[in-house]
């Protein structure tokens, strides 16, 4: 009779014990070797604190940072997707010029360190593009009510231009990665599909809209969802241009209090909450897509 191998073998137990031992050793070295006196009790006040004026509990630096990270990533993902789609269409176009434009954009982004890119692009955006679009004037001329809504959705008045610049920078950067995912999806569609669409007399736009892209979406959704997670992680580099997201706030707390380990571990945990819940959702999405096949 066919017997299944046991799923948990003695060697697994040994490995787990080794991992645990390594963890304990690291914790021991941190506690006694580093001469670092940890004080976890100090951290919660940076998540929530009591507002002295009203006496109500309100989110403090770290949670504010988390919310900004979430907003930054969310608003950057939308233009990045649009940009990714357009560039992917450029890159799969028959037109040589469009292909060259798409290729140049993608290669430029992919072959530069994000940090270098954000310095160049962010200061171009905030110095040239924002005045051109009149973002500053736009936010200042809104009514108080509209400003409140915009503050909840994006950022408050004094940080609005900075925030929008950060969103655009991140989107410009992520767009290249999304473009490559969508391009791979378009190229994975069997040639016969496009030949059938061609033979039926469909225009290029209809061929894309009704035949190619619906199939592409299904194929690349898991990869795109993964890229959404990457956007959250990459949003940390926006801290370098003083956008007050989670990493920036973490650094502020560390500088002010010197609770290095406690703060960064808390920051890491907060990122995990965002990214892990997104990857669990992605996993669910993948299963749903698979069952409809």
């Amino acid at each position, binding site marked *: 009779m066919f017997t299944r191998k046991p799923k948990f073998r003695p060697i697994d137990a040994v490995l787990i014990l080794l991992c645990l031992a390594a963890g304990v050793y690291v914790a021991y070295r941190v506690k006694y070797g580093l001469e670092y006196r940890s004080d976890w009790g100090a951290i919660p006040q940076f998540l929530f604190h009591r507002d002295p004026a009203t006496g109500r509990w309100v989110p403090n630096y770290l949670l504010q940072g988390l919310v900004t990270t979430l907003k930054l990533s969310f608003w950057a993902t939308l233009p990045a997707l649009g940009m990714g789609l357009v560039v992917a269409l450029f890159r799969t176009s028959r037109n040589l010029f469009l292909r060259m434009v798409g290729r140049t954009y993608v290669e430029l982004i992919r072959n530069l360190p994000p940090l270098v890119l954000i310095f160049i692009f962010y200061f171009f955006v905030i110095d040239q593009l924002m005045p051109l679009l009149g973002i500053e004037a736009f936010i200042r001329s809104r009514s108080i009510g509209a400003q409140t809504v915009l503050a909840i959705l994006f950022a408050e008045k004094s940080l609005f231009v900075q925030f929008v610049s950060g969103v655009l920078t991140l989107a410009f950067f992520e767009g290249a990665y999304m473009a490559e995912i969508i391009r791979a999806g378009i190229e994975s569609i*069997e040639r*016969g*599909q496009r*030949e*059938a*669409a*061609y*033979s*039926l*007399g*469909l*225009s290029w736009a*209809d061929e894309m809209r*009704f*035949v190619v892209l*619906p*199939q592409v979406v*299904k194929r690349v959704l898991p990869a795109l969802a993964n890229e959404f997670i990457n956007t959250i992680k990459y949003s940390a580099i926006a801290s370098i241009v003083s956008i007050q997201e989670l990493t920036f706030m973490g650094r502020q707390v560390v500088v002010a209090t010197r609770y290095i380990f406690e703060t960064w571990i808390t920051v890491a945990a907060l990122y995990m909450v965002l990214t892990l819940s997104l990857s669990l959702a992605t996993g669910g999405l993948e299963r749903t897509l698979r069952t409809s*096949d």
Partner: protein
Amino acid sequence: MNKTEYDYIIEIENVSKTFTGGVEAVRDFSAKIRRQQVVVIMGPSGSGKSTLLRCLNGLETPDNGAIVVDGIPLDDDKHHRLEIRKEVGMVFQSFNLFPHLTVLENVNLAQMRVRKKDKAAATQRSTELLQMVGIADKVNAYPAQLSGGQQQRVAIARALAMAPKVMLFDEPTSALDPEMINEVLDVMKVLARSGMTMVVVTHEMGFAREVSDWVIFMDGGQIVETGTPECIFTNPQEERTQRFLSQIL
């Protein structure tokens, strides 16, 4: 001459096609196809039959020569190409149904987007065609839920939905299990008898004998022999044709 009275629906003159890499698929090929004719193109694999067929609706672009479909030259002019794509239906070896659309949506799509019909009119026409090919009970199924033979019959209905003047068939039964070949051939026979102009690349001798008006035997990208099915099958003149027929019989 008035376009509708034009005698030949497809004229192929001195067409050549060489693929990158130097494979000469079609060599200096000329033929004329009359309205309502059923032409079968036969030949060993690699003889250029499929490439020739794909040239006829612009899926391949010939290096030399001229193709005129229903009085419209197939050239770089986008409008000419679009007209020809609308008037020439094509059925592929691998069906190429759109997997994310139901059977009905597959047949409706081009009617609505290219012929600009509304959904009700398109659905009515599609239902008739699906009835004709015997798939009326599967209109809401997805292609993956159908057998190969059923998929190919849907593909025929999809091409017919554009009301084409010519139908091209590129080895329509080669990817099918043997027991499904006849259900597809039967549909094609009905179509042939209804007066549709058809150009069929196939190895199905029975089909060629029964409904074709003209058989072209190709090898090495050229015509080896042409004639009525009786001539070609019972009394082939060329040694190459005889050898091929003795292999597939």
